[in-house]
C-alpha cells in the first residue's frame, strides 16, 4: 500500500473523511482554546476547591461560558466513536457494492484482500487518530475541570477519555465495515450497526462488571473515593464476615429491617476498583475491544473474499 493509494481511499470517502477529520479538528481546536483561556486567564483557581469560589472572576459570564463549553465537550465524547465509526466504516464496502465500484476494483485487482486493505487501513488509521485526539483532549479538559484529581490514578471519565475513545471508534468502524461487506447496502448497514453497537455496549458492560466484581476491593465509606475509584456495587457486611446484597441480607438476616438501637447490625461497604489500577484496567479493556475489532475486520475480509459483486 502506498501513500497515493491511501489518499485515494480518503478521496473515495471524501464526505465522511471531511466530517470526521473536520469534527475532530474543531473539537481539538475549541478545547485547546478553552483550556488555554481557562489556564492563562486564571480561571483554574475556580475549580481547585470543592465549594464554589465566589470571586468576581469565577462568577463572571466568561468563566461560566468556558465551564459550559468544556462540560459540553466532555459530555459528547462518548458519542464520538459511534458517529465516527458509522460514518467512516459503513461506506467502505457497503457503498462500493451498492454503487458497483467494487466490481470495477475486483475485476482490476486479482487480490480482493489487497483492495480491502487499501480501502480499510487508511480509514481505520484516520478513525484511530481522530479517536485518540478526541480522547486525549477530553482527558486534558477533565484535568482542567478537576485540577486536584490525578487522572492517571482515577476512573473519572472512564471510557470517555484517553486510549479507549480511539479503540471504541475502531471497534464501531470495524463492525460497520463487516456488516457492510455482508449486507452490501449502506442504509441497512448503518441501522444494523447501531443496533449491534447498542447491544454490544450492554453486553460488554455486563461482562466487564462481572469480571471487575471478582477483582473488587471492599471499601468503607471512609476509604472509598468517588473521585478516584470505580464504584461497582454497595453491599452489607455482617460481623460474621458475610458480604451480601440488600436482597440477600433481607432474606438471611431479617433483623436488618427491624429498628436497631445505636449501630446497625452490619457495615455499609462499597465494592470498587481502586484508582491506582486505572491504566491497567484501561489497557485490558482496550485489548479486549481491539480484539473484537480484529474479529469483525476478519469477518469483513472473509465476506469480501467470498461474496459476489453486483
Amino acid at each position, binding site marked *: 500500500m502506498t501513500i497515493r493509494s491511501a489518499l485515494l481511499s480518503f478521496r473515495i470517502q471524501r464526505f465522511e473523511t471531511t466530517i470526521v477529520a473536520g469534527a475532530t479538528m474543531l473539537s481539538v481546536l475549541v478545547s485547546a482554546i478553552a483550556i488555554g483561556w481557562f489556564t492563562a486567564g486564571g480561571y483554574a483557581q475556580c475549580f481547585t476547591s470543592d465549594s464554589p469560589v465566589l470571586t468576581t472572576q469565577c462568577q463572571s459570564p466568561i468563566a461560566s461560558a468556558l465551564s459550559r463549553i468544556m462540560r459540553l465537550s466532555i459530555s459528547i465524547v462518548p458519542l464520538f466513536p459511534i458517529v465516527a465509526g458509522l460514518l467512516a466504516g459503513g461506506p467502505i464496502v457497503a457503498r462500493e457494492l451498492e454503487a458497483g465500484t467494487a*466490481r470495477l476494483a475486483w*475485476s482490476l485487482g486479482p487480490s480482493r484482500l*489487497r483492495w480491502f486493505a487499501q480501502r480499510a487501513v487508511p480509514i481505520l488509521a484516520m478513525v484511530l487518530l481522530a479517536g485518540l485526539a478526541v480522547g486525549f483532549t477530553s482527558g486534558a479538559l477533565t484535568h482542567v475541570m478537576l485540577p486536584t484529581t490525578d487522572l492517571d490514578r482515577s476512573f473519572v471519565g472512564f471510557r470517555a477519555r484517553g486510549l479507549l475513545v480511539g479503540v471504541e471508534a475502531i471497534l464501531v468502524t470495524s463492525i460497520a465495515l463487516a456488516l457492510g461487506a455482508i449486507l452490501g447496502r449502506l442504509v441497512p448497514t448503518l441501522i444494523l450497526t447501531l443496533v449491534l453497537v447498542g447491544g454490544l455496549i450492554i453486553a460488554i458492560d455486563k461482562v466487564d462488571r462481572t469480571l471487575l466484581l471478582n477483582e473488587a476491593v471492599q471499601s468503607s465509606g471512609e476509604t472509598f473515593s468517588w473521585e478516584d475509584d470505580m464504584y461497582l456495587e454497595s453491599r452489607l457486611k455482617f460481623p460474621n464476615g458475610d458480604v451480601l446484597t440488600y436482597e440477600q441480607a433481607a432474606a438471611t438476616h431479617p433483623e436488618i429491617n427491624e429498628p436497631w438501637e445505636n449501630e446497625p447490625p452490619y457495615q455499609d461497604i462499597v465494592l470498587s476498583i481502586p484508582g491506582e489500577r486505572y491504566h491497567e484496567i484501561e489497557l485490558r479493556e482496550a485489548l479486549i475491544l481491539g480484539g473484537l475489532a480484529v474479529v469483525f475486520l476478519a469477518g469483513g475480509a472473509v465476506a469480501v473474499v467470498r461474496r*459476489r459483486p453486483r
Partner: protein
Amino acid sequence: MTAVLEAHGFGKRYRRRTWALRGVDLTVPEGSITALVGPNGSGKSTLIRSWIGFERATEGRLSTGGVDPQRDRAGAVARVGYVPQSPSLYRDLRVRDHIDLAASLRSGFDKAMAARYVERLSIPLGVRAGELSGGEAAQVGLALALATRAAILLLDEPLASLDPLARREFLHLMVEAVRAAGATALLSSHVITDIEQACDRLVVLGKGHTLLDLSIAEALAHHRIVDGQAIQAAATGGDGAVVGGFPAPNGEPLTLVRVPSVADAEVPQTGRPATLEEVVIGHLAAGRRRDAATAAPVEEAAA
C-alpha cells in the same frame, strides 16, 4: 486452435429455483473477437461474470485462460480485462485517479497506455468521473481494461448506453488494441451491425443454452432467407434445413434456412443470402419455439 475460454456442461441456478444457464458447451478460440448475442435474460452476463469468477457454477465447469475461475479466482481475474455494462467509476475520483487506483491494484497495469487511450478518446485526465457521460465512462472502463494487458477481454454489453459515434470509437479502439496485442475478446451485445464489423465469431445464446457457435463468415455463408411462399420448397427441396421463421420489419414472413454454403455453385440456392441480423433473429426465434415446445408438455404433465 487453442481455446482460451471454455464452458463444459455449465449451468448456473439462482436461489435454488431459476436456471439462468444450463448445459452450455462453448469454446472461444485464442486470438478471436467473439460476439455473444442473445435476448435479455439469456444468461450472457452470467456466463461472462462466471468466467471472471464473480459467479459460481451450479454444475459443469469453466476455464479462463487455462484456470478454473471457481478454484482460482485470482488467477482468472489476472488473465482477464473486464468491461461491464455500466462501468461504475468512482464519482469523486478523477480519471487520472482511476488509472492510479488500477495500477495500485494490479501489477503490470500499464498506466501510460491507459492515459494514452483516454486522451485519444478526448477525455481529459483531470475530469471527475461524476462529470463524464455514460459513453465516456464506458470508454474509460475500456481503457482501464485494455491497460491491464490481459490476454482475454470480457465485454459485457458495454455498447448498450453509447450513441452510434461513441459505439464506433469504442469498437475501433477495442479491435485495434486486441489485434495489436494478439489478445482474445468476447463481446456481448445486442447491436448486430457493430458485431459484424468488429467480431470474427458469433455465439448465439438462447434461453440458457447455446443456439449457434461459428465464425461470422460461416454464419453468413451458410444461411439464406426465403419468403413465405418458398418455405415449402426450401424445407423439402433438399437444399437446406429450415432454422426458423420470423417477421420482417414490414410484417412479411421470412424464414431462415441453413444451407451447406451460399457460395457453393453445385448446391441449388433458394431465396437470398441472409444478413447477420437475420441469422441471429432466425436462430433466436427457433430457440424460443423449441423452448415453448419443451415447456408445454411439462406444463401439461404438471396440470
